[in-house]
């Protein structure tokens, strides 16, 4: 059991400033994108949604966007964030589960 299998936790650390850190290469099967790539894609989508939520909030304060558009964007950002947190919690608890394993 190689601990490097835990590498998929990497992308969650790059939520802020996601430019470097390519997804850790795994011994991916040739078929389809790996879990790491998928997670990276999801995280960068999430960052985009959060940013558009913030932009909508600012436009809402300035009064240039109707309230329900602002609410729609912010709710979408909130949903994305809570999904990301739930997935991260799941991954962390899996890591801890392995760390507690009796040798």
């Amino acid at each position: 059991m190689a601990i490097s299998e835990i590498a998929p936790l990497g992308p969650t650390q790059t939520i802020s400033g996601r430019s470097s850190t390519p997804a850790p290469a795994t011994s991916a099967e040739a078929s389809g994108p790996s879990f790491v790539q998928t997670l990276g894609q999801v995280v960068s989508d999430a960052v985009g949604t959060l940013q558009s939520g913030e932009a909508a909030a600012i436009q809402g304060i300035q009064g240039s966007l109707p309230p329900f558009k602002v609410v729609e964007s912010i709710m979408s950002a909130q949903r994305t964030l809570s999904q990301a947190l739930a997935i991260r919690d799941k991954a962390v608890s899996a890591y801890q589960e392995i760390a507690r394993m009796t040798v």
Partner: protein
Amino acid sequence: MIDPLLASIKIAGAGLEAQSTRLRIISENVANSQSTATTPGGDPYTRKTVSFDNEMDRTAGLSLVRVKNIGLDEAPFTVEQDPGNPAADDKGFVKMPNVNVLVELADMREANRSYEANLQVAKLSSDLLSQTVNLLKDV
């Protein structure tokens, strides 16, 4: 294909936009229910009407709602005897807007109910989505 619950939130948002436009037109009608012309014998404010239409969002395959047309009510103007009014014609008659405030208030209640219904759809869909995500927690 967009998730059905996300789609309902988007559709409800279009409904909110349409109903708020309707409320805007109603408020214009109510505010102008006494607006007469500025020239003698001229036409006063004409009541505006709103009609809705089904709008297809082709990328997502959704049926949204949109305001199709803001038209003018063709009902005849009522006439009042008011010789002192600047809009009075040579016999002293003034054309008043064809706005019936009672009708506008009834319409306003209906717009209010429709807006609330769309809000409930958005709220329920959002609640269901977050409950689904919460399945991941504390199992």
